[in-house]
């Protein structure tokens, strides 16, 4: 056996093609009109169309349709039976048409046709019973085992039954309890009882006696028996299979169930498909042995399953992939005994039969176009070219240029701070709003020259400062659009701010999906963060910058236009930090311009005040100088041994406030530690919490729970408490991170203008990147440690004199997973130390002083010689450093008293430096790597290739 087709014998489309047909819309019945009569097929739609067909032969013929009429109300069901007592012909059946509020009993009358026309039928109203409630179905039968006459009862939507007995005698029967969804009611003649499907998904059996009696007595209806079916039902039928037994066949939503009329389960068959409708019938006569109970179930995917009892005996499929029929009947139509009559939801009426015509699934042909290789190759080539074009990154400058052409950004910030900010609108925290800090206005204009699929603008502000827009996204931007955004920048958190720079990053996808990023930056006015105050005479940290550029006038007004008039020649400017810090203590920074020289002295007690001021001085100098247009600084790649070109414009005195910076790092580190500790503690509590919860869940109901509940409560309280603490610490951490930001930025700005090899400056600047970042797994210190370590062991900043750097590297690798803070701190300190030393020794600013140097060199050289030979290799890296005079400090001390930071340099250090210098001189020419222009890390943060890196390292090894 396999899957077969249901062969079509006769089919017709009913007059209403809408989805208006249901189970009860199909009826196969005889009316006793002629002697050799076969089944009529009656179809009634829910729009009121009634049709009667009488198939004669294979294939539909116009004469097969005997009647077509329109009822005034929807037809809910069609029934045939001996509904009327006073009919002579005892074979005659009447047609009962169930309408929502009435049932009409018709006599069917045949009108003989002439010649070709065929016969016709006519309906004569025999009786009409009206009722108030809308009907759902009808149950008919020889209630009370009356002979020769069928009674019926109408099942209403609300579950009540209305019985119609004799002519016009009717009574209502209301079941107690809540109403279920309407479900069919079936009558079993053998036991004279009704089966009703209750709301609790039980099948209940009521005897007719009880029902009719209870009407009189109004007693409650007690079912004779009740059996749980456990699911909703689709349909139900009663079939008499034996003399002494009827079967109730129930098609459930998931199972096919059979009970006998005493409520005993015959079988319950789990269906592995979604059933739609079914019919059950007996082949043979029930009073004879060998009668077979057959059930046909139609599944949702138009398969017909035939079962004998619970065993499948046949499966067939409707060949066209039409929706499954909603009603099925077995019927003896003319010339086809045992035809399968089905009705589709849209009125497709079909009479079919089972045949050994195997079902063959026709695989839909794939319409794949024949591939033309030449064409495909061309397309592929084109695509690959496009891809190549998009991902070719060899010429970054050109790419960036192109990108900047596609989206033109112009981003400016007004240099006047203003106070009229709508703090409410911007959702500013109250503690900030109260201070009424000044804000700045900015404008971003962007012109889009090429069509873009996506464009995103992101504003990056330093921590604590917020922009009124932080991200803007656009989709499908047409070419030629220009947009303008008005922006407000304002302080949103009371933090130390390390930079005034605001970056706008435009990232966009072209229509082909090629991503590009361009960025622009602008600076916020300092007046947003400082206000003028009395300059301070003395301070803890003093820095000196000397402007060496000829194009920049060393006046305060040049740099601090927000605070000073253009023409003013004030020499001292005191600025007080506006926003952050402790309430009581004011953080003041003083900038003093030397009267007669080109130096600035910047002094303050607080590390945090410096960053923005230094940024302003350095950037403004470089900016003014390059706008004067002498040397293009950025485009040239730094070469080995070239001095920091910044120095040609301005130079910082080689002093780094190491201790305050280290102090900031210490504090930050401690906070990190305490966060970790707190997190661990929370984790522990949380584990406890989970364990307790689990215990509570697993505890059986009888055990007392008080102790456990108390534990849980106290644990919970603690959890909340510790959580709050963590929040508090995190807030502190944020503050400290910003402080550290300022400190690192300070160091960075100083180093930026130090008299060092440019490479060194670049490397150190890239290591000391701001803003610093803490990750949950890795604090800033930990993430910095490898870089600092590297600087410590390799390159010009190496401190150690031992030549066995390999050993150091190994030791380093071993201790990698345990972060040693003291070691990090030490390295950090020595790094700064080294930088200062290096920077303070080789100075080319005053070439005439260099003449003094050689003599000094010669003096110290012999003492250092032994050690230094071992260091030769390492020092080759510094071979490019020019000789420089030793006595830089005399130079400095001449200008301002505070510039003297001489206590940093003792004699030993200087001598050591001198010693180095001799070595440079000696090895300069011999180094074979000298001509290689490889760079270690360049300013664009391009990673060097491995070879470059290795060869670079090789020099120092």
């Amino acid at each position: 056996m396999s899957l077969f087709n249901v062969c079509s014998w006769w089919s017709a489309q009913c007059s209403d093609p809408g989805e208006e047909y249901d189970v009860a819309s199909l009826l196969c019945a005889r009316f006793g009109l002629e002697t050799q009569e076969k089944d009529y097929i009656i179809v009634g739609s829910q729009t009121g169309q009634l049709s009667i067909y009488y198939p004669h032969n294979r294939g539909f013929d116009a004469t097969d349709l005997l009647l077509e009429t329109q009822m005034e109300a929807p037809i809910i069901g069609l029934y045939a039976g001996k509904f009327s007592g006073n009919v002579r012909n005892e074979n005659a059946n009447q047609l009962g048409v169930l309408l929502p509020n009435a049932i009409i009993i018709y006599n069917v009358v045949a009108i003989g046709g002439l010649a070709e026309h065929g016969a016709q039928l006519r309906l004569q109203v025999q009786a009409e019973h009206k009722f108030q409630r809308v009907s759902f179905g009808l149950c008919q039968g020889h209630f009370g085992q009356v002979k020769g006459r069928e009674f019926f009862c109408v099942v209403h939507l609300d579950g009540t039954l209305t019985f119609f007995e004799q002519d016009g005698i009717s009574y209502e029967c209301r079941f107690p309890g809540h109403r279920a969804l309407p479900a069919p009611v079936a009558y079993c003649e053998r036991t004279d009882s009704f089966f009703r499907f209750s709301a609790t998904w039980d099948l209940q059996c009521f005897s007719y006696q009880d029902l009719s009696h209870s009407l009189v007595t109004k007693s409650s209806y007690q079912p004779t028996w009740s059996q749980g079916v456990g699911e909703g039902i689709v349909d139900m039928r009663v079939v008499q299979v034996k003399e002494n037994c009827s079967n109730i066949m129930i098609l459930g939503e998931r199972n096919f169930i059979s009970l006998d009329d005493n409520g005993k389960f015959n079988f319950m068959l789990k269906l592995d498909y979604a059933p739609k409708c079914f019919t059950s019938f007996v082949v043979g006569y029930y009073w004879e042995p060998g009668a077979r109970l057959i059930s046909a179930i139609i599944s949702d995917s138009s398969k017909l399953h035939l079962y004998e009892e619970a065993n499948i005996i046949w499966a067939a499929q409707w060949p066209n992939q039409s929706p499954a029929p909603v009603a099925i009947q077995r019927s003896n139509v003319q010339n086809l005994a045992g035809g399968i009559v089905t009705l589709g939801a849209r009125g497709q009426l079909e009479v079919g039969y089972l045949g050994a015509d195997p079902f063959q699934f026709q695989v839909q042909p794939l319409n794949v176009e024949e591939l033309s290789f030449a064409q495909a190759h061309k397309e592929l080539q084109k695509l690959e070219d496009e891809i190549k074009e998009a991902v070719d990154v060899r010429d970054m400058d050109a790419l960036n240029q192109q990108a900047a052409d596609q989206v033109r950004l112009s981003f400016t910030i007004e240099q006047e701070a203003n106070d009229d900010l709508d703090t409410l609108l911007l959702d500013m925290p109250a503690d900030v709003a109260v201070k009424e800090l000044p804000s700045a206005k900015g404008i971003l204009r962007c012109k889009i020259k090429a069509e873009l699929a996506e464009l995103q603008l992101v504003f990056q502000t330093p921590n604590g400062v917020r922009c009124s827009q932080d991200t803007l996204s656009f989709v499908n931007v047409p070419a030629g659009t220009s947009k303008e955004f008005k922006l407000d920048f304002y302080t949103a958190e009371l933090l130390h701010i390390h930079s005034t720079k605001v970056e706008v990053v435009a990232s966009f996808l072209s229509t082909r999906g090629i991503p590009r990023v361009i960025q622009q930056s602008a600076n916020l006015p300092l007046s947003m963060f400082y206000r003028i105050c009395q300059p301070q005479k003395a301070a803890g940290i003093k820095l000196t910058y000397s402007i060496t550029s000829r194009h920049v006038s060393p006046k305060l007004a040049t740099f601090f236009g927000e605070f000073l008039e253009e023409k003013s020649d004030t020499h001292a400017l005191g600025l007080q930090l506006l926003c952050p810090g402790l309430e009581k203590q004011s953080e003041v920074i003083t900038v003093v311009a030397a009267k007669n020289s080109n130096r600035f002295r910047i002094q303050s007690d607080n590390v945090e005040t410096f960053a923005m001021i230094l940024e302003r001085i350095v950037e403004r100098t470089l900016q003014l100088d390059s706008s004067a247009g002498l040397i293009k600084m950025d485009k040239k790649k730094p070469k080995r041994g070239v001095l920091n070109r910044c120095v040609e414009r301005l130079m910082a005195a080689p002093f780094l406030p190491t201790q305050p910076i280290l102090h900031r790092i210490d504090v930050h580190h401690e906070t990190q530690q305490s966060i970790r500790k707190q997190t661990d503690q929370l984790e522990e509590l949380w584990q406890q919490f989970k364990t307790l919860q689990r215990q509570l869940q697993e505890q059986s109901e009888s055990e007392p729970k008080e102790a456990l509940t108390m534990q849980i409560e106290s644990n919970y309280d603690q959890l909340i408490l510790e959580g709050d603490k963590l929040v508090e610490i995190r807030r502190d951490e944020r503050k400290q991170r910003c402080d550290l930001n300022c400190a690192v930025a300070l160091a960075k700005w100083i180093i930026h203008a130090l008299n060092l090899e440019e490479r060194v400056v670049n490397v150190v600047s890239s290591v000391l990147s701001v803003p610093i970042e803490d990750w949950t797994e890795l604090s800033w210190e930990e993430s910095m440690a490898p870089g600092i370590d590297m600087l410590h062991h390799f390159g010009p900043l190496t401190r150690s004199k031992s030549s066995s750097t390999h050993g150091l590297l190994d030791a380093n690798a071993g201790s990698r997973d345990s972060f040693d803070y003291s070691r990090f701190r030490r390295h950090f300190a020595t790094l700064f130390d080294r930088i200062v030393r290096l920077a303070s020794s080789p100075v080319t600013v005053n070439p005439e002083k260099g003449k003094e140097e050689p003599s000094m060199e010669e003096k110290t050289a012999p003492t250092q010689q032994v050690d230094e030979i071992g260091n030769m290799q390492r020092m080759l890296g510094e071979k490019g450093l020019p000789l420089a005079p030793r006595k830089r400090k005399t130079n400095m001390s001449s200008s301002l008293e505070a510039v003297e930071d001489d206590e940093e340099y003792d004699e030993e250090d200087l001598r050591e430096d001198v010693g180095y210098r001799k070595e440079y001189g000696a090895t300069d020419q011999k180094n074979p790597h000298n001509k290689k222009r490889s760079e270690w890390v360049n300013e664009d943060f391009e990673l060097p290739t491995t070879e470059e890196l290795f060869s670079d390292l090789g020099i120092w090894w």
Partner: protein
Amino acid sequence: MASAMLATLELDYFRAVSLYRRRSYERCAELCNALLQAGHDGHVQLFTTKEVEEEEQHQQQQAEHSRFGSNLQRIGPRPRGAAGGGAGAVDSGPSIMMPTWLMEGVWQLKMRALTQRVYVDDLDEDDGGNEATEEVEFERIATAARPGSSIKTAFQPRPLTSQRAQQARSRGSGVAHSSDGRLNSSRPGSAAVARPGTSLSRPGSSLGSRCGTASRIRATSAAAFNVGDATSKLYQASRLNPTIYAERETLVKALFQFLYYHEADVQKAHSLCQAVLEVERQKPSGSTGCTLSWWWQQQMGRCLLALHYPRRAEPFLQQSLASFPHPDTYLLLSRVYQRIKQPERALLVIGEVVDSRPFDVTYRLEQARIHQAMEQQEDALQLYRLVAKLHPINVESLASIAVGYFYDNNPEMALMYYRRILSLGAQSPELYCNIALCCLYGGQIDLVLPCFQRALATATQPGQKADIWYNLSFVAVTSGDFNLAKRCLQLCLTSDAQNGAALNNLAVLAAQSGDILGAKSYLNAAKDVMPDAAEVTTNLQFMDVHYKL
């Protein structure tokens, strides 16, 4: 006029019921929505009154209804005047009141329709997969060592060099296991496979499967479909108080199924179960349910099993079975025993019912599955053959036999069975993929690519596509076109970036073409995805030993 209006409403209700009966659940729900809206506009209160017949319960009910009445009956405060204008003719006057019973009926009908729309037989689904989705997912892959994808042997053409392929195949074979072609399960041997769900077959129920773990459910819950439906507030499971509904026995079963299948909120369904059982326990034993209802015990077991408490589910199911031999109970009990690693006991349970109903394929299939889970392939195959004899259009058995043949190095026979499944009308990308593989190893090379083409054309889910590309890479490897193999694998990764097997094989291919660093990084990626896979570990070790990096 009022009565005419009422008749219209009732007729609409009838139509809704009729639609429900015809399985047009979407339209039924729509119609119900309209009715509910109308009823709401007429301020009909749900579940506030009871039948007069139940006088003695009346008082008590009244009290409690007023409690949850506020929960359920209102959709939202709405001025009466606006309602009359907006909702059209149905409710144009205050005189027309929709009767409460009608409102409740509609409410229940919609709930049933929503449930039925997304109903997936949880017993059709593989618990194994369910279990695997949690933590043991990768253990399963690791238990069957993948032959031949280690670096030395990767290029020997042999059937199924990967467990992944095996999965793909078995998944495909399991698809459409119901004889109906409902395409909903992944029966034989599929373990770590996200079930394809019934989404393929039923329009509108694209939400995959109702699956056991409550945690994963939120996203897949069908409740998401109610967005934009004003009446959806009537069906908010989160606001439902189980103890209140437990006593409304006409409603509670439907409500349970709604929670379990539609909302997929097993936790809630479970607490409803508990509440109902509690109510039944407290009832005087003289009344109708002197023993606890088997239905509720079965559902309790179902919930507990889905919540991964198989041991607690067992007594409930045993009791349920004692009072009524429902097929689901047998299957659930069998699942329980399988879950607690006692497959023999599962066999005993199923054996019992098989003795009484020897020709019911449901139980035979379960038997076969248990045997397969116990890795008794022979017994399993014999049972599958029996099923195929009893029920020749049972796709699951056919597919399982095919898989058996395939691994028995008999791809031609497997192909026969797969073609049989195809001729039954069960069309799925997995099936095409399997046919293609059978063709490949059976030597019918000309059919391989067209079948894969079809598979790709029919595949909709990214997971399916990934599997097909993965299997295509084997075709490429077999034909020696390593470039194509690489591309296939890369395409596989674009569909499923977490495909460890593909990453591993890419590594092997990369190593073979000399790109050792690339291979290493692929292997590391594979390691991230499948930390326990034996091949990846072996390959990594091999690389460590033989290549200096």
